[in-house]
């Protein structure tokens, strides 16, 4: 029995190729100019080209036309060459012309003297994840829209029921929506109902006061309603100063107050008009 000195090396080489082909992700080698040297099964599965078709092609063949014109492939390889490793995401092209969202890592391969030999490029299809991310973003936007409704409860009186916690993002939208409605409906009173807000801390109070202040600059007076006993306690303990902001226990009381103030002010105008007539 003769021992082939190459046998362990060949077995290693073989298992190495099997490993590469077992990967579901694309792992390919490029030469230092970006031409494909090796092409694993994962790459075939991902992009549709067989190894025979792909080897020898320039890597830009898998980029969109816009990116080819923009020289993206060359730029990415240059970045990888300079930094040693480059990570990116973007649209890439399959053999059938369809696009997929790829997450890509390009690593530069150098010999012991530091001479650039080429690149290893790993890619994964993240189209679904991207779609899911986008769905989540859209839904978050929708929830924000839904969570800040402005209701006209009476002539010139708006109610803004706030449900959940207020962060600066939400508070900003809420204020914008409210101010637009004030302008639209010529509202003079705004009832901010906070019975759906679990806790009022200094930050939430700050947001509320900003909204109140902005509404007042547009000529609308705000009334706070739905302050629960424990909320009132917490606010006083925290030293939250509401200034002259009026506050009522329930939305009903707040509306009543608004109506009283409206009738008081319109009586004033009427009386003045009467005084002018001879």
């Amino acid at each position, binding site marked *: 029995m003769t021992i082939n000195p190459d046998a362990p090396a060949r077995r290693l080489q073989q298992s190495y190729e099997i490993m590469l082909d077992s990967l579901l992700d694309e792992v390919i080698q490029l030469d230092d100019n970006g031409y494909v040297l090796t092409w694993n099964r994962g790459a075939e599965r991902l992009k549709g080209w067989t190894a025979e078709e792909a080897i020898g092609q320039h890597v830009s063949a898998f980029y969109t036309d816009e990116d080819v014109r923009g020289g993206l492939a060359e730029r990415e390889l240059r970045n990888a060459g300079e930094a040693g490793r480059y990570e990116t995401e973007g649209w890439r092209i399959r053999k059938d012309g369809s696009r997929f969202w790829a997450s890509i890592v390009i690593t530069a391969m150098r010999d012991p003297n530091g001479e650039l030999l080429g690149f290893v490029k790993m890619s994964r299809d993240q189209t679904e994840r991207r779609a899911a991310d986008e769905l989540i973003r859209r839904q978050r936007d929708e929830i924000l829209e839904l969570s800040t409704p402005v209701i006209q409860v009476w002539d010139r009186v708006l109610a803004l029921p706030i449900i959940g916690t207020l962060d600066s993002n939400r508070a*900003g939208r809420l*204020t*914008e929506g409210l*101010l*637009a409605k*004030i*302008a639209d409906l*010529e*509202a*003079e009173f705004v009832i901010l109902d906070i019975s759906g807000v679990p806790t009022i801390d200094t930050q939430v109070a700050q947001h509320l*006061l*900003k909204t*109140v*202040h*902005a*509404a*007042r*600059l*547009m*000529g*609308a*007076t705000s009334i706070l309603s739905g302050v629960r006993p424990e909320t009132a306690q917490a606010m006083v303990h925290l030293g939250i*100063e*509401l*200034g*002259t*902001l*009026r506050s009522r226990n329930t939305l009903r009381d707040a509306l009543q107050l608004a109506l009283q*103030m409206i009738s*008081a*002010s319109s009586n*004033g*105008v009427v*009386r*003045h008009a009467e005084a002018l007539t001879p």
Partner: protein
Amino acid sequence: MNEASVPILRIGGNVLISLQSDLDDTAVVAIESAIMREVSRSRTTGTLIDVSGLAMVDSFIARVIARMAAMTRLLGAETVIVGIQPAVAITLVEMGVSMADLHTALNAEQGMAMLQRLLDGRPARAGEAASPAMR
């Protein structure tokens, strides 16, 4: 300065001033002196400053508005700022410009009604607008 560029309207016993967006330092000085002349000459008791023509404000414009209101008040006229646009209101609040001691109204019509109430010696909607405490 060119007085024709300063729109000052007299309505009843009140004066209405419309601020336009192309305000610079010299224009502001001209407008201020024109307003002061008009208010003192006509012994106006109510002044409306209409800022609905201002789509955006910076801190300069914000100071100008507050300054004009302070001046007319010194001459004994009640002053109401009207027509602050939503984006402007948000900017002012974000800039931390305190206009809490100014009277504000949505438009000239409501501003006029508020002036009458103020001049009748009534508290403006029970006094919220008169208090500087809110920030």
